[in-house]
């Protein structure tokens, strides 16, 4: 689960990670109150959407820049008016963009130097890793590629936690000294506590900055959480912003379906994540384009199959459907009945290829054949994919 920058910074403050003073606003009426919390002078206005690349983004009405530096609070108020309710398109949003429902005002800090700091899981060691660099405010992937020696990593032993010597080592590598060193060490320790205690999947600060007066601040904040651990963090669940999620994905999650919308025109309905991914792959292999990832899980019920069909058909790009079920334990005939009911209930007119294999598959195929539906039986995955690709071509 992702949260907004302003929410992440509130969380940082709770853990003693310093951030520039700021205040969010959700309506034009809020602007005055929010700005009243900040001192007079240079102010930043930041569009709050989950996607990155906001500063370089363009609004659909042509206004450029989702993050603006303003010399005065009056100017900040005007800029916020242009952003709020407007739709911002960035490299990460896709062409449709995201509607800005919150703007965030912050004090514009004097920047002495920018750094990069992140904490995430290192899969190879199964330990948290702190990644830091003296090259901040730029794409870290580029730094890692072009100057890997400027990326410093600290692996944390979960049995002991972050050790002081590790923090000191990192501080020296990043070249901090004096008051900056002391402040940076405290910030790193507190950020690690925030990562660990909230079950974060990643915390990223880009840039982390120093100021001429020796302060060390998180100028930006990106935080995501481990979905599996949300059950023990109701305070974090309350930060979820459904406006940032695909309505079809929200609907799917209500039925225990795992759905991800894609750009293609062949919808797929599959049991199991690995099989669902490879069903998308095989559609592509034979020249089609998948419209979605959809895993109905190991024990799909009739209701789930019906819901899945409705969600799939909610995507207007869809021109055909491929159902690929390997019924290991689940009864293929139950699935077949679900498909028949769903197709009738939604009045399906699109081409449908069904591949049923495994437990009670013969009975399932008979149910499909007796239904009177205009569907095509698939044999292997390759055969089924070729058939649906041909039907939508």
């Amino acid at each position, binding site marked *: 689960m992702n949260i907004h920058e302003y929410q992440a910074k509130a969380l940082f403050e709770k853990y003693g990670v310093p951030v520039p003073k700021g205040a969010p606003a959700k309506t034009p009426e809020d602007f005055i109150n929010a700005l009243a919390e900040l001192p007079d002078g240079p102010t930043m206005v930041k569009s709050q959407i989950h996607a990155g690349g906001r500063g370089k983004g363009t609004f659909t009405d042509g206004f450029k820049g989702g993050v603006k530096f303003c010399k005065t609070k009056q100017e900040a108020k005007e800029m916020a008016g242009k952003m709020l309710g407007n739709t911002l398109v960035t490299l990460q949003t896709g062409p449709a963009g995201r509607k800005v429902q919150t703007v965030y005002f912050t004090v514009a800090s004097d920047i002495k130097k920018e750094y990069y700091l992140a904490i995430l899981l290192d899969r190879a060691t199964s330990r948290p890793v702190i990644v830091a660099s003296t090259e901040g405010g730029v794409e870290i992937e580029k730094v890692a590629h072009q100057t890997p020696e400027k990326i410093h990593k600290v692996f944390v032993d979960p049995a002991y936690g972050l050790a002081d010597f590790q923090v000191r080592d990192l501080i020296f590598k990043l070249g901090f000294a004096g008051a900056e060193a002391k402040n940076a060490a405290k910030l790193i320790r507190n950020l690690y506590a925030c990562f660990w205690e909230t079950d974060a999947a990643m915390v990223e600060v880009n840039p982390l900055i120093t100021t001429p007066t020796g302060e060390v601040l998180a100028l930006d904040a990106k935080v995501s959480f481990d979905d599996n651990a949300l059950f023990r963090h109701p305070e974090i669940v309350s930060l979820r912003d459904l406006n940032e999620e695909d309505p079809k994905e929200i609907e799917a999650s209500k039925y225990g379906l795992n759905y991800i919308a894609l750009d293609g025109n062949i919808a797929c309905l599959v049991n199991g994540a690995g099989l669902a991914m490879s069903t998308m*792959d095989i559609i592509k292999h034979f020249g089609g384009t998948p419209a979605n990832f959809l895993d109905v899980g190991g024990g799909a019920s009739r209701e789930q199959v019906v819901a899945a069909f409705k969600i799939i058909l909610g995507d207007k790009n869809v021109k055909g459907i491929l159902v690929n079920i390997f019924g290991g334990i689940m009864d293929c005939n139950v699935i077949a009945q679900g498909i028949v009911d769903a197709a009738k209930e939604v009045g399906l007119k699109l081409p449908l290829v069904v591949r049923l294999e495994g437990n009670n598959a013969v009975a399932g195929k008979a149910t499909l054949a007796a239904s009177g539906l205009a569907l095509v039986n698939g044999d292997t995955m390759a055969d089924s994919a070729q058939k649906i690709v041909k039907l939508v071509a």
Partner: protein
Amino acid sequence: MSILISPATKILIQGITGEFGARHTRLSLDYGTQVVAGVTPGKGGQFFEHGTHRVPIFNSVADAAKATGATVSAIFVPPPFAADAILECSDAGLDLAVAITEGIPIRDMVRVKRAMAGSKTRLVGPNCPGMVAPGPGKDSHGGCRIGIAPGYINKQGHVGVVSRSGTLTYEAVFQLTTKGIGQSTTVGIGGDPVNGTSHLDVIKLFAADPDTHGIILIGEIGGNAEVEAARWIKANCQKPVAGFIAGATAPAGRRMGHAGAIVGGTEDTAAAKIAVFKECGIEVAVTPSDMADALLRSAKARGVKLS
């Protein structure tokens, strides 16, 4: 005959009285697996009954292992309590803990993995379909089925299958059995980013097992476990190996069902992994329908008989 488990292996089920655990305990008993004990704290002294089977239930893994000689546990405990259940196996000194549970917090698994360093207990999973060592009977009856896989699609034989994904494992096994090629052991290592036994661990076991003549390695996007296994195969394994990677069409940064299936960089894409497979002499299955055929091609090229 098989790796890690055999049809003679005695297993216990943690979470045997839950709906999910009970259903799969019944299926394992029907398959002929030696399910000798169940563990549900507070229900010690009761029995799990199914047909003529009467499986004693214990309050702890240690009690169950001591009383019945079980050496392997299948864990069906809900996510908030699953890490604790895994550690209990380690404390009781079992040989193997197979965690089926999906949705365990990553932080819990990070701690469990650290706590199990040096333990004699091997962990398979979590978020996995488990393992099957097929038996000699009809539909491989009499085998050892630990977890949720459909045992009946297996056939006793000489191919080892290792995968992160359940349904893709079944797909591979089905293709093999349909072609009359049996399996020594199938191992689902699970779709989570932090798991116990890795692809490489299983590949090493298959390579050393005289009864395993060929291997199917099924991976997906995310992480570098498949690459690590492939490099080891190139240097150490003469047996025919077929490989498949799922997720070529997955968009970057999105979690594709499995918590571990997310492309984070340029090294963990399907294309990058497939390139490493080819470089390491692994016969790549072009589509998921091609997994058994790919292994047959590799076996033919190396003059190895699979069945």
